[in-house]
């Protein structure tokens, strides 16, 4: 009875993450969430295919981290048997290589994390790819509701736990952050058995980044309460001040109906009452 749903090709861009405490390489949290989202889509739409793409240097540590994604397969024969690795020298710009690869074999949906956990981590990559490929981009994705006739219905996560429904014409790039479903555990065996298909691409070094000074983050200075007072009395009053009324409206001797009316008016003005 249901209209025939066609599968989509999804490419998940994955990166090497960094454990926030130990600093070791791991699968990046947001990218793993993106892969989880894509695997959910594969289950939802029969005939979908998920492929993984990474551009960067190949080393022992990064390979172990990348295999973390490959261990997320749902079961035997469920895809994720391989990961495409565009091999570049350390410190090169990943954007041209990725854009070229995606333009060569365009998938319908590209899923990325919103920020890398290493190096600059500016969150520019999805935007740069969207600009180069000319595809629409949706940030902060929470769920993919439906894909029909080349149009995807998505749920975008907003601050304060709110959600917004969007319709996007494919092909599109979506980036996920902490609001997407949490990633499943990675299984060690499938991760070991899967293979990395490495092709080396020539990339130009990121000269601009090399000129910047990178240092471990120091604590940001805490903002002080600055009291601009002419006299000692004003300074003392500011230091000893309790939370005082700021000209709030006080309704005494009103019927409950009048009070409720005033509250409804404020709630409407603030736009929290839907």
């Amino acid at each position, binding site marked *: 009875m249901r209209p025939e749903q066609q599968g989509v090709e999804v490419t998940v861009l994955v990166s090497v993450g960094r454990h926030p405490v130990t600093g070791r390489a791991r699968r990046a949290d947001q990218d793993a969430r993106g892969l989880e989202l894509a695997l959910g889509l594969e289950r939802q739409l029969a005939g979908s295919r998920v492929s993984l793409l990474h551009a960067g240097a190949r080393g022992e540590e990064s390979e172990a981290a990348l295999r973390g994604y490959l261990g997320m397969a749902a079961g035997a024969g469920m895809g994720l048997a391989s990961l495409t690795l565009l091999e570049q020298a350390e410190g090169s710009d990943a954007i041209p290589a990725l854009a070229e690869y995606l333009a060569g074999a365009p998938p319908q949906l590209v899923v990325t994390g919103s920020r890398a956990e290493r190096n600059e981590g500016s969150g520019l990559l999805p935007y740069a790819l969207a600009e180069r490929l000319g595809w629409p981009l949706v940030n902060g994705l929470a769920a993919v509701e439906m894909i029909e006739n080349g149009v995807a219905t998505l749920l975008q996560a907003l601050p304060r736990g709110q959600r917004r429904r969007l319709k996007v014409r494919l092909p599109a790039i979506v980036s996920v952050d902490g609001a997407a479903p949490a990633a499943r555990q990675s299984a060690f065996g499938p991760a070991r058995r899967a293979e990395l298909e490495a092709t080396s691409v020539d990339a130009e070094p990121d000269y601009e980044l090399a000129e910047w000074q990178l240092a471990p983050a120091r604590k940001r200075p805490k903002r002080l309460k600055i009291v601009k007072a002419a006299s000692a009395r004003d300074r003392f009053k500011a230091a000893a001040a309790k939370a005082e009324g700021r000209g*709030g409206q006080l309704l005494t001797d009103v019927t*409950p109906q009048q009070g409720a009316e005033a509250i409804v008016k404020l709630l409407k003005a603030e736009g929290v009452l839907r």
Partner: protein
Amino acid sequence: MSEIRRRDPRREWIVRNRLHAEHARALAEQGGGAASEWLGPSGLIRKYPHAIGFIGPNGIKRIDRSGAQQCGQAVGGARQAAQDRRRNVTIEAPAFLVAVVPDMPGGRLSNHDRDLLGLARRLADADPERPGAVLAVVFGELKEQGFGEAGIDRLLHLGDDTYVGFAPEARLAVLTAVERELAPRHWLLPDSPLGGADLGRRLALRLDERPATGVWQIEADAESPMGWRCTGRGGAESLDIQRPLPRVALALAECAEPVDETRHAAEALSLAEAILSALSRIEDLGHVAVDPAGVALAEAEFILSAGNGVKDWEGFHHAARVLGATEGASRVAVDDGFMARHRQVGATGTWVTARVYLAVGISGAIQHLQGIQGCDKVVAINLDPGCDMIKRADLAVIGDSAEILAALVAKVEQQRGGQRDAA
């Protein structure tokens, strides 16, 4: 009322002369109560120490030697001066423009926006000989009054429906039109999930710039091309990146002090050229109703919070469902077992950041008030008009909480029913 203080020499003389028939009346008019100091008949200054000072709010006599309390009229004048101490600044012919695109959640400038405008002022006012102007580009419906106080010289407002909701392509078209027409020297956007982070990155790539993201500090640096150097967070908060300030910068909250000494013109501006409305490939279908109980308390937008004064718990839960509010509670309500521990608001519970916090029967212990410091609007329903929560509240209704909540629910349901009938 005139601001100029007029002196009445004759009355002053009567006040000094305690033997004058009208001495007491003149003193009372001046508001000083009993005279504490006068010139004696022999030319000596005489003092009456018991007349010095005033009775404070706790019934204790206070002596204020700052001079502010000597005359009743002077106090009012001083308070007015304190409110109106900002210097008016108008920049007629700016040397350059600093463009800022604030988030404006709910049509008002957020604290993050104000910090960003403070940063823009630092960039604009660096050279007092050739000051720049701060241009703010704002979208949607506005509720903000104090654009000038926030440090905005020129205001470009686009209130069309096209820019409401998730419309990055339409907004980007406006910003590129601003770039073509006004060519600002700097672009500053908030690096916030409310939309600034998204729009700023799109803008930077459209302008073919590599933006500085997560900027939290800038300092003057003669060797950099723009004359500034910035420090930004990178690598999942683990790195500080120091680089020359590019044209487009996305700054974090508390990147600079907000403007508090000057008032700027906030002159309305409009673009000469028509903005091309590109066909958008993204369609916004609007907000989706989310279960308010599932929203984390720390990030809930609208909280209905219960305290010791609530007796009708069924009615309270019903009100929260009808209003679509996330439930919160004070410590007493949690300790008494009426609410779950993870619903507790305050120093030992959750620090909330709601836009509207509706406190029902909460007297406002200092720990609780600390927890709601980040809330924009506080509404209190309470029986006691003297409690601390009423002092903090923007709107306080004195009365029985159960009755008021029931009336509130009835009113909201009635309005919703009316809307459905009309539709």
